[in-house]
């Protein structure tokens, strides 16, 4: 009956309920949107590492993220493949150059060079054509999202990157990096574009016979004392951590999230406070006819829970609509599975916090006041 009473109060006090609902929806939608943007950017930060299909990355010593390493010698490959735990090791070369668009203008691109035939660190999802396109020396891929920026190149179109002739042979999907447009090419083409010294590479990707453990990693590090040796997971984390800490993204997103939560809490607090003030007489009546403080608390908590439940539902509905709308667009948005329940629980907790002032007012309802 206390739950029914709470439900009836919520339905009856429409304006207060709408206000409190707005607060919960604001929290779920704004925080969810911020988080989806943050996780989308986090994905961009480590996109190459996460899609490398390797167990271990070997890069130059003392790196702080996957994008800022010096070139390393290709002779390390022999040392690496000499270890019995290693299945294969492949060099990759990452350079940058200017992509010549159809109208003669230039766009800066990162060119990822991958060695045939394994094409490790090659593109992972195609919109048009497939990885066989990269077996040709002058082939490059461009991403679907960058087509407009690159002057809408079509398949087999010949152009230049870094004044070197390239031919667009495939269009990828989702290959978007934190540092800009990504183009895949053969390792030899990248050597030409980036004019790197022979036998030197950006990284060596290693595949092990089994999952990497501390013993294998120790052996690899011992064999390559001047290199940074990280598991893919470690390097991904290191890269994300670097960008979050050094670009202000973390504090910026944290700040906007806190503001969104605060706005929600204030809206919920004010509307529930007003609602409970308007119901003070009802709570006094309930106390007079035998209700305890605990029973009043249950009614107010049920009200908060009902509003939070509906608000979370509406908020997620709006968030899902937005995420679907922005899917495939240039806006980075990604909401990992664990975020949704965490956000829902967080929103419900915040609703309870918001209703705590209202609860204090409700608990002060004096049963003796009904006789005045």
């Amino acid at each position, binding site marked *: *009956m*206390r739950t*029914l*009473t709470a439900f*009836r*109060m919520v*339905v*009856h*006090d429409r304006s207060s309920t709408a206000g409190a609902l707005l607060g919960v929806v604001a929290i779920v939608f704004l925080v969810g949107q911020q988080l989806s943007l943050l996780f989308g950017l986090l994905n961009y930060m480590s996109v190459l590492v996460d899609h490398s299909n390797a167990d271990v990355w070997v890069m130059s010593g003392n790196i702080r993220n996957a994008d800022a390493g010096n070139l390393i010698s290709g002779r390390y490959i022999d040392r690496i493949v000499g270890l019995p735990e290693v299945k294969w090791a492949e060099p990759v070369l990452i350079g940058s150059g200017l992509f010549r668009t159809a109208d003669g203008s230039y766009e800066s691109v990162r060119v990822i060079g991958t060695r045939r035939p394994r094409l490790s660190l090659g593109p992972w999802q195609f919109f048009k054509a497939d990885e066989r396109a990269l077996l040709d020396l002058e082939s490059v891929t461009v991403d679907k999202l960058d087509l407009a920026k690159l002057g809408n190149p079509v398949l087999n179109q010949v152009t230049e990157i870094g004044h070197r002739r390239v031919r667009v042979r495939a269009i990828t999907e989702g290959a978007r990096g934190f540092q800009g447009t990504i183009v895949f090419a053969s390792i030899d083409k990248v050597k030409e574009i980036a004019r790197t010294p022979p036998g030197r590479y950006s990284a060596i990707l290693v595949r092990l016979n089994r999952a990497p453990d501390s013993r294998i990693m120790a052996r690899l590090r011992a064999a390559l004392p001047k290199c940074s040796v990280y598991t893919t997971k470690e390097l991904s984390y290191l890269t994300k951590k670097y960008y979050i800490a050094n670009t202000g993204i973390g504090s910026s997103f944290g700040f906007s999230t806190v503001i969104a939560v605060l706005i929600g809490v204030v809206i919920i607090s004010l509307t529930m406070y007003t609602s409970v003030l308007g119901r003070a*007489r*009802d709570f006094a*009546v*309930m*106390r*007079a*006819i*035998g*209700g*305890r*403080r605990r*029973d009043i608390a*249950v009614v107010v908590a049920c009200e908060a829970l009902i509003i939070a439940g509906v608000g979370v539902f509406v908020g997620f509905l709006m968030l899902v609509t937005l995420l679907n709308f922005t899917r495939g667009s240039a806006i980075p948005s990604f909401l990992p599975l664990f975020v949704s329940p965490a956000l829902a629980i967080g929103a419900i907790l915040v609703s309870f916090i918001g209703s705590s002032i209202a609860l204090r007012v409700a608990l002060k309802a*004096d*049963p*003796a006041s*009904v*006789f*005045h």
Partner: protein
Amino acid sequence: MRGPKMTTLRLEGIAKDFSDGAQMRRVLFPVTTEFEPGELTVLAGPSGSGKTTLLSIIGLVLRPSEGRMFFGDKEITSLSENEAARMRLQRYGFVFQQPMLIEGLSVLENTLLAFAVQGRRPPKGARQKAVKILNRLGLGESLHMQPRLLSGGMKQRASIARALIKDPAILLCDEPTSALDAESGQTVMRLLKRIAIEEGRVVVVVSHDARVFPYADRLVKIENGQIVSDTREQTQTEEVSQS
């Protein structure tokens, strides 16, 4: 469904002081009296005389500053807050000056709330009983209506139904007719009288409305916090039994 026990409410030297910040002020001087079942007692007096304070103390929503109070043989003066709430839930019915029905709940739900305000399910047959009482009070057509759609008299009758649903041994009414027109007021008083006599409850009505006095079995007049007269009245019993 059990009926009310025939239990007397006894007050021994009950007094109440209020503090106005600087000093204590006595608003109710020691009262020693008994309220008998089957009797409608009217506490009368001008505004500020202390009658509502006395009613609040009897109703266990206000603690006396001194004195003792007994429900039958059980002392109920110093019950804890939760014990007092349980006592009010199980033994008391209240009719307030304003009907104070909870908006959002229907008339039937308001009536049942008296049973379930502590979260327990209403006992088996409670709903039927509520319907029966509401029918008896002429609200059979309004069971599912919202309180705001009822007239003042109907609301007050609904609040009486809320008070009666638990078969309370004690029914406390604070100015139950003040917000009603003359005809509705008479209907309510006849009803309270019948409840006291036929159902053997302690019924205490606070009022300064002289139109209520003819219904009293006992008229207690309070002035300046003291009982100045306590008389048994010749009441309209015959009229009530016929109604």
